[in-house]
């Protein structure tokens, strides 16, 4: 593992020529940077212009291999194709307070504001830029802000709509929807909306916004990202150091380093070059807490709304047969003309199975597994029923 120094808090702050230069580079390269990390090989893009992400390139390579081991790619997509690594990097990079200009977006402008020590005069944003919350805007804030501004995803994405689904027209006529825009024709004639009385008006994507954190949530997220030591107020709360999902930066730094150390020790190779069986053996030797954490975050990275960085192109949702957010269209569309009546989407009926579904059940080994689960001592009086059937589905 390469030596890394993610949090050089002690670094003396001066607005050096180098830093200013970097700031300008950053501004110019912002569009390229928004592409973010796509595959390990591309991670160098952000390095090249000198922006410090939290996880380093080497760590990202290990993380990518580890998530791909948890949900591998086979005939279907796995964690890798879903961009799980982006989700985790986006989560670890977040720092409350890095939205220095308080516009609810993280951008290069926040970094400028932090580097220049700018504070917004607005009373609603009086601490913007003081990322670590020590009362002054200094070098440490710049370091935090750097990773946050370019890699962080929202802790809480905005609402109410993602803009992926149209307004049902019977409810909200277009002429009154000032925020809506006309979608391309091909979107309107997709299978999802065929036969449904919609106009092609899609609301804006509010999910791309950050919902700002009030004080308590900001403190809580500091504990999650930096650990209980960073928040002296919680000294009398044992949970702040016991809960698994705290101190995430340290857990990832240590956990990924440990995976590499075990790989080298056992097989003399980096983790990414091991076979699946060898990787399993490394996982079995690793800290089980870290493996659990990684498993949780892998699932989250695959199935989150895409605005959190994972679930790229909604591949994760497709894999598990989940349609994701559906507002404002939904599945039972109220018909104003006949009080109390609803339209259904033919491909996604609210009251029954999809038209193309069968009653075939599970593969044999899942059936074996469920038989054991339903008869296990813990779940008594569980049962395997003798005559299962499917309502409304032809056998």
């Amino acid at each position, binding site marked *: 593992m390469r030596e890394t120094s993610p949090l050089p808090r002690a670094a003396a702050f001066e607005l050096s020529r180098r830093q200013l230069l970097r700031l300008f580079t950053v501004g110019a390269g912002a569009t390229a940077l928004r592409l973010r990390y796509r595959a390990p090989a591309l991670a160098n893009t952000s390095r090249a212009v000198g922006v410090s992400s939290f996880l380093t390139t080497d760590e990202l390579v290990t993380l990518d291999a580890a998530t791909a081991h948890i949900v591998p790619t086979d005939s279907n997509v*796995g964690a890798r194709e879903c961009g799980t690594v982006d989700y985790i990097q986006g989560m670890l990079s977040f720092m409350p307070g890095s939205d220095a200009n308080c516009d*609810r977006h993280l951008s290069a402008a926040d970094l400028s504001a932090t580097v220049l020590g700018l504070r917004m005069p607005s009373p609603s944003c*009086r601490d913007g830029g*003081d990322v670590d*919350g020590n*009362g002054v805007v200094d070098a440490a804030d710049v370091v935090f802000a750097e990773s946050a501004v370019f890699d962080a995803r929202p802790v809480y*994405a905005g*609402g*109410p709509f993602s803009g992926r689904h149209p307004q*049902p027209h019977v409810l*909200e006529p277009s002429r*009154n929807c000032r*925020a809506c825009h006309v979608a391309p024709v091909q979107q309107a004639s997709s299978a999802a909306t065929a036969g449904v009385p919609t106009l092609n008006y899609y609301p804006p994507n509010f999910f791309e916004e950050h*919902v700002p954190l009030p*004080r*308590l949530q*900001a403190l*809580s997220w500091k*504990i999650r990202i930096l650990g209980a030591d960073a928040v002296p107020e*919680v000294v*009398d*709360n044992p*949970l702040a150091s016991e809960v698994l999902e705290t101190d995430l930066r340290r857990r990832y730094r240590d956990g990924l380093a440990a995976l590499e150390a075990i790989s080298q020790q056992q097989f003399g190779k980096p983790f990414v070059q091991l076979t699946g069986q060898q990787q399993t053996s490394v996982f079995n030797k690793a800290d089980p807490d870290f493996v659990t954490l990684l*498993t949780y975050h892998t*699932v*989250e990275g*695959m*199935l*989150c*709304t895409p605005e959190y960085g994972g679930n790229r192109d909604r591949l994760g949702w497709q894999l*598990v*047969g*989940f349609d*994701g*957010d*559906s*507002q404002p269209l*939904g*599945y*039972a569309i*109220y018909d*104003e003309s006949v009080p109390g009546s*609803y339209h259904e989407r033919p491909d996604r009926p*609210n009251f029954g*199975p999809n038209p193309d579904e069968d*009653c075939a*059940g*599970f593969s044999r*080994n899942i059936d074996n597994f469920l038989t*054991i689960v*339903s008869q*296990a001592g813990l*779940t008594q*009086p*569980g*049962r395997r*029923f003798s005559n*299962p059937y*499917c*309502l409304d589905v032809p056998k």
Partner: protein
Amino acid sequence: MSLPSNILGVLGNTDLDRFDALIIGSGAGGSAAAHVLAATGQKVLVLEAGDNHFPGLDHPGMIPWPLYSNDEIKMTIRRFDFQDPLVEPRTFRQTERDVARAHPDVNNLTRNVGGAAVISSVSYPRFTAIDFRMASALQDAGRSYPGTSFADWPLSYDELEPFYAETERLSGIAGIAEGEGADPFQSSRSGPFPLPPQPEMYAGRVLANGATQLGYHPFNYLSAVNTRPYDGRSPCVSCGLCTNYGCARNAKGSPAVTTLRKALLTGNCQLRYNAHVSRLMLDSARRHIVGVEYIDNDGQTQTATAEYVILAASPIESVRLCFLSDPDGPSIGNSSGHLGRHMMFHFQTIGVGIFKQRLHGERGRSITNGMADLRGITEGGAALRQDWPLGGVIEFGTSSEPITAARESLQPQALAFAHVVGVSFKQLLVESPFHAHIAVMIMHGEDAPQPTNRVDLDPTVRDVFGLPVPRLTYKNHAFELDASTFYKPKMLDVLEAAGAAYGFFDPFDPSVPPTSRHIMGGLRMGSDPHESVCDAWGRFHDVDNLYCVDGGLFVTGSGYNPTTTIIALGLRTAAAIVSPAGPERLLSAAPPQSLGIHTRPHVSAIREYYRRGRPFGTRAAH
């Protein structure tokens, strides 16, 4: 230490500075009280500990879109609204002999403008007639349960009925009052439900089909979810992500968009959010509250005063405030020694059916069907059913959240199990037996009140404000455990009749605190000051200007969802404050304001919210 405090927190009439009423908590009970008081000209200050996710809620005209969305990471995984145990922990133990330990979820509720009902399934059935005289009923039947503290309520179902009807009108309850699809175990009503019944979702239909085959009486669940445009709010589109989610289109008639909003629009109400009340200030005689202290979003302590104070912080926090406020004395309202005792949570028995077909929990409302046949009472809620114990209403649900399902069902033990039979993690994710194929029966079993089940202050653990945290001591009684055992085979029969391939139950672990979110008792109401904390009108026996309007008042827990009763009691208490002679007369028969189709989404408020980078809606609404 300072942190970004880019959130100012006032809604309603910001010009008000003298108040008649001060309400702690903007949830079901507090908002109901605020509505009645503001409508009758009282000047009301509401202090809410949580954040506001309804920007522009006080804006006259159309109700604006909220910040809620179909986003599982935000709402469920990262708990947008929930009280956060990293900064506000609670501790739990089973008995007085144990040492309580901090636990991440001691039946934590959300803290947000509008309270926990905002993200609930808004299942709003009433309690039944027998629930208000359960102690007498059990005694008459010769059933006794040592260690329990059953008592009759100091009011009857008939006394509460007008307030139930008003609750249903305000919240917009969809349901069927009689005939097929009605719940035959609900008690008599003075009128029909204001809204037509809900369209059923697939899993609900499947389980109702099974229940019908066995001769049970599944009913269209009573929910405050719009089935047509109502009170200026749009109808539900069955988006699927419902329980744990605030409604993205305000189709849920939760307190925020009904009672609270009405109060804010009167011009007589001011709501301060991110305002955490830390102390009630007593006068020297300990008979009168002179004001409260709260901690604002900057961590600064502020004070507020009013003629009278209404506690509506939900029972665990309301009880905690009473203990915190008089550390050197006997605690507020505790002359009887009953403060914090008789806590009830409903004992949930969760039967899981795995079906061969996908049941599509990702669409449909949260709960559209249920049955009360296993409640253990007779039709109309008139009497105890012979030979059957008291169970609870059963909600027919399913799983709508893939990440949560994966996290809960793919625990290391389950995965080790799966590995033995050659099932990979990915196969479980893709075939999804514990998510896409499940229908769930959730029984809200009545749990017996026990004086030993209580809330007090933990001696060592403190929250982020340095205040002692609530300590819950709770152990289930054989009363509810035996009932659960009795009803489990009957629930399995329903799953089998519905066509399930497998059926089992969520294992019960008494060492883990309950997570039912139905929190009742602790500030028990009663006529006898030696046996209760509050009187029949929710006023503290010990303090002349302090009231409670949350679930703390409950004497027994019934076996139905509690929110309707919390709201009805809140309306009733507030009505009694302003019209002691005849609180029922305050109820107006007029339909809700601005009935009509909600044709234009009010987008300007939320656009403003994002664009200006500060909260919108702090203007006074006169």
